[in-house]
């Protein structure tokens, strides 16, 4: 976290605070609690109410695994890349013990047969193998902080993927898969059985495995979607296997129910498949779970299953294959392509969520309100398939109208565009589709905004496209056969230049559209070109009108590192300064404007008023990488801060999304891990490149800490 004065950056993101490894391992305890590692902490959820009961915080790095203590089911171990294993009483949320291992830990295993021993996966210094499985003998000591020193290597060269190693038959043997190789280690006989998988196709690498709790049977998932059940592996060379095939792409997780009667599998198809053990032709399906399944866990009594998904979600499923609860954080999409927006009604943050959806995320309650289905098509879970994506969205001043643009680019020449307008329905308290305009422009829409005036009768939407035109859309009154709908009112162009940004003035009387190096100012009342402003050199990158008392100013940034401020009363340049602004935005609740400048891989933040070119507040290196989206969100309660540097946060908070993750978690080992995981698990982990950062004052932070 970056510290400066009393203003700090806070990371936000729902369940998984750091959005890296989401619900790392969901595990159940007596059907009432669900534990999952989330960022630097372990979260305890109630399975019935979906509420988070405890945040178990003590780790100083990513939590990589959570495990119940076999001897006491009210306690749980958690391991982290900070090199510690911690023992928790999760019902009360108390840290009992900390075992210092000294090496980053990537997964943790234990069994009832081996009391006092933990099996952990740590990186090796050996060149040939990257990771090894180590047995750690926990010293019996009453101290809170214990250093474990007794290590013995069990398997060398294992996968760091937690799903690729498992104990079988109550701890008699341990099986581990890596690449094309499955290793089984029997503790009693102390000997190795090495298995080579058939190497016919290149796609049958192991992705995960699960051992049957009663039988000598290992189920392995493969890259090509097959599941193999291995038996008879006691004797070298005489092992047999049967193949089950339903998944069309890599199996990402496998799990046996505690009695061993059923096998659960999941993958990118987002379908949970339940296979009957020994009657494999009988299958049960739970389709359309929303996103790729990354992990499956079963409660010790077998009554509940739980799947974690790649979109930051945990689904709790009854053993009758019915969804009983969904724990959803900020939905993790592939990327945030819409602007960050604040819904004027609910004050919720709105951005891309599930594929083809917009998510409404309440900032005050830190909770997902709902997902709005924009595309309204069945999502086909298949890699490499071009899907419709919501790329632009805009709200009008009251939140009565929402405009969205979805696009799908199959071939470079074929671009499918849809502009949809949604009306807020008081009865259902949600947005209802009003008008669909297919192919509103011939090329990609680069900007879209509603007229913000609060007193005008008609609502105007302006969309700007790469085809060289901007179009104004207006609500046509209802006819006797159909309700009001939107239609094109005006098509504007300027010297066949390509427009880039558009912006309405605060009172809605002026529209500014930038055409490469020229800013054109139009009157929305008559669609007359009023004036043109230009400040060579450089194409306009951002355009923004001043708010409130500064509404006579129009600000623009160019790609030749210039920030210009025009006075619209005199139609002349008021001031300009040289800075490489990547994002400029105005606070609708005050005169302030924020500019993010990208310099040497870091982003600096400047806050200023358009009336004078002197920053009110500046912050060097707010974060790494480029800030791609930002928004001012209103505060629930206004602050009364008098300090000059923090006054700009009195009315609103600044939220922004960056291109990369924050650097502090970006050390060498985690990189390694993710790449390795990607290699082994195929598609089940996607790196989330957009991280939430929140700019807010210390008040909020103190509340978070308490």
């Amino acid at each position: 976290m970056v510290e400066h004065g009393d203003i700090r950056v806070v990371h936000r993101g729902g369940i998984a605070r750091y959005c890296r490894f989401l619900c790392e391992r969901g595990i159940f305890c007596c059907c009432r609690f669900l534990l999952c590692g989330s960022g630097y902490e372990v979260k305890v959820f109630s399975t019935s109410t979906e509420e988070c009961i405890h945040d178990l915080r003590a780790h100083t790095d990513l939590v990589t695994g959570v495990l119940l203590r076999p001897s006491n089911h009210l306690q749980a171990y958690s391991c982290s890349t900070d090199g510690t294993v911690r023992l928790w009483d999760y019902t009360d949320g108390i840290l009992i013990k900390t075992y210092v291992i000294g090496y980053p830990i990537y997964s943790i295993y234990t069994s009832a047969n081996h009391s006092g021993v933990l099996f952990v996966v740590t990186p090796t210094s050996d060149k040939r193998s990257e990771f090894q499985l180590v047995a750690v003998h926990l010293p019996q000591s009453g101290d809170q902080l214990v250093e474990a020193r007794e290590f013995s290597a069990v398997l060398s060269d294992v996968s760091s993927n937690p799903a690729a190693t498992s104990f079988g038959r109550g701890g008699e043997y341990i099986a581990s898969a890596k690449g094309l190789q499955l290793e089984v280690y029997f503790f009693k006989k102390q000997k190795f059985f090495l298995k080579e998988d058939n190497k016919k196709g290149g796609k049958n690498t192991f992705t995960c495995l699960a051992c049957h709790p009663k039988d000598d049977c290992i189920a392995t998932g493969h890259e090509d979607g097959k599941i193999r059940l291995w038996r008879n592996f006691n004797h070298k060379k005489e092992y047999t296997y049967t193949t089950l095939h339903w998944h069309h792409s890599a199996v990402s997780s496998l799990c046996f129910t505690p009695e061993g009667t059923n096998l659960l599998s999941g993958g990118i198809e987002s379908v949970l498949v339940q296979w009957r053990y020994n009657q494999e032709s009988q299958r049960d399906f739970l389709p359309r779970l929303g996103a790729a399944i990354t992990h499956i866990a079963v409660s010790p009594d077998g009554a509940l299953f739980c799947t974690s998904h790649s979109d930051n979600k945990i689904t709790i499923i009854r053993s009758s294959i019915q969804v009983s609860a969904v724990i959803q954080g900020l939905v993790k999409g592939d990327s945030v392509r819409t602007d960050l927006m604040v819904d004027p009604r609910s004050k919720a943050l709105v951005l891309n969520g599930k594929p083809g959806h917009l998510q409404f995320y309440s900032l005050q309650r830190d909770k997902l309100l709902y997902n709005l289905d924009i595309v309204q098509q069945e999502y086909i879970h298949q890699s490499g398939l071009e899907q419709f994506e919501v790329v632009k969205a805009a709200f009008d001043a009251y939140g009565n109208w929402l405009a969205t643009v979805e696009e799908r680019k199959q071939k470079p020449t074929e671009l499918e565009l849809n502009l949809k307008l949604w009306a807020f329905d008081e009865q259902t308290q949600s947005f209802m589709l009003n008008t669909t305009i297919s192919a509103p422009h011939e090329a990609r829409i680069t900007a879209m905004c509603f007229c913000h005036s609060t007193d005008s009768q008609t609502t105007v939407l302006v969309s700007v496209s790469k085809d060289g035109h901007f179009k104004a859309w207006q609500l046509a009154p209802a006819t006797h056969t159909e309700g009001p709908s939107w239609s094109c009112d005006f098509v504007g162009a300027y010297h066949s230049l390509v427009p880039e940004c558009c912006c309405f003035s605060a009172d809605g009387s002026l529209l500014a559209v930038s055409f490469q190096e020229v800013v054109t100012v139009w009157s929305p009342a008559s669609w007359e070109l009023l004036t043109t402003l230009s400040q060579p050199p450089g194409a306009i990158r951002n355009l923004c009108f001043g708010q409130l008392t500064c509404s006579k100013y129009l600000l623009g940034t160019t790609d030749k590192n210039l920030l210009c401020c025009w006075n619209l009363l005199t139609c002349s340049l008021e001031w300009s300064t040289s800075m490489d602004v990547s994002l400029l935005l105005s606070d609708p609740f005050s005169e302030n404007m924020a500019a993010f400048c990208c310099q040497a891989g870091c982003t600096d933040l400047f806050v200023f008023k358009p009336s004078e070119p002197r920053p009110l507040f500046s912050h060097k290196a707010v974060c790494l990488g480029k800030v791609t989206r930002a928004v001012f969100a209103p505060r629930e309660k206004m602050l009364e801060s008098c300090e000059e540097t923090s006054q700009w946060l009195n009315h609103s908070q600044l939220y922004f999304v960056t291109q990369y993750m924050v650097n502090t978690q970006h050390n060498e080992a985690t990189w390694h891990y993710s790449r390795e995981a990607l290699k082994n698990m195929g598609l089940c982990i996607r790196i989330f490149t957009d991280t939430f950062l929140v700019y807010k004052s210390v008040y909020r932070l103190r509340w978070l800490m308490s």
Partner: protein
Amino acid sequence: MASFKPTKIPIYPKLGEKVTQDTVYWKNYKAPVQIKEFGAVTNIHFSPVAPHNYAVTAFTRIHIYGPFSQEPVKSFTRFKDTAYCGRYRSDGQLLVAGCEDSVVRLFDVSGKVALRMFKGHTKAVHVTDFTSERYHIFTGSDDYTCRLWDIPNATELNTYQEHTDYIRCGVTSKLNRDLFITGSYDHTLKLFDARVDKSVITMDHGQPVESVLLYPSEGLVVSAGGRYVKVWDLLKGGQPLVSLKNHHKTVTSLCLSSNGQRLLSASLDRHVKVYNTTNFRVVHNFDYAASVLSLALAPDDESIIVGMTNGVLSIKHRKSPEESKEVSHQQRRRPSYRVFVKGKNYMPKQDDYLVSKPVREYLTKYDKHLKKFNISKALDSALQRKPEVTVAVIKELDRRGTLKNALAGRDEKALSELLHFITKNMVDFRFAPVLVPAANMILDIYRSVIGQSPVVDRQLLYLQDLLQKEINYQQELLDVLGMLDTLFASSVPRKELLCLEGMNNCTLG
């Protein structure tokens, strides 16, 4: 777990006219009855009294038709030359008509021979009418004069020699016995007052006036001449109110609907247009086979009667209320209303807690197949549906990336069915973006089997033919567009552009 989202069928914009109250009203006529007359039908006039017979003036005859008769109930044939302007008196007893031989004849509707012959005009008389006190006749002639006649004495009362060209239309006031309006080929309309022996108001129409019409309130006059229909305000001394230019040939006849809310104009361009009299917008349009010369509406708009240059009289009767609902009666008898409301009209009591029934969603056949990824079956079942649905399913298959698989592996019958659909709908611009890639795919897939089936080969040849035609058509359209562009470019005022550029220079400088 979300439920399966069915394929969305896009709603395409409806082409053609919009359905308004007016179109509903004016379309509610039966198929026209066509009667062949001996020559061009120049005038149609309805009797003001029931049963509202109408007099049709064509060539040397005037035929009287009953409201539903297809044969003339009576005809007046004692004209030496072409007859003009047969008009009823307000009591429906007498009929007056002009003639090419300059004699004006007055008939009793029950007799055959002319009761009176008014001689005095020196050229053909095209306009005749009764004044509102019923004992005078007003006539207008090609000798540039209009005259007033006394019926009992058959004498000429007055002559007005103000026009300088043929007088081809005129109408008398229904409210004032002394007023009448004439329209002439000298481009003027004149309002005459019999009390002052000269015209009181002159209005310049700008074109030879073909028809003139007085509003029932007689505050407004409508004149037709050239391509224009003009409305004049008499109370403001003949001030022009509106000028309508909706026809592209000379407007020949005017008439008002029975409630006075709609104005109809007929023209040589074979159209009859209906205007709203409050905003003078065209609200409906009738097409006819030949140039329309005369037009009349029966009282209560019961029928529209149009006479054309080829001598055809077209009569459209309004559908009776039963007939307009006929369509619904033809349908299969449905279970009675009681069956549907059974148990549903139970009113909950005040304290009852209502549990809403979960709505079960039914999937169509193709959606069921799509849900199970049976893509070929989905396409097959969609082919049985409307083209909008089929195209939506093809689009959905394309989105799933499985269109090729769905199209492949078909036998002769299935393939020819598919090709039949494609050839039928490919040139429809709404479906072309989806169907053209699909047709390409079909050609790619089945290239190796071309020549094995005569049925498929014929269809492929037809498809080729169709595409060639479509390409030629598009080419022609582009040519027209290019021509239009040059026209528009030359009509854009040059000044504005200069001004814009000037402004631009200023800001740049």
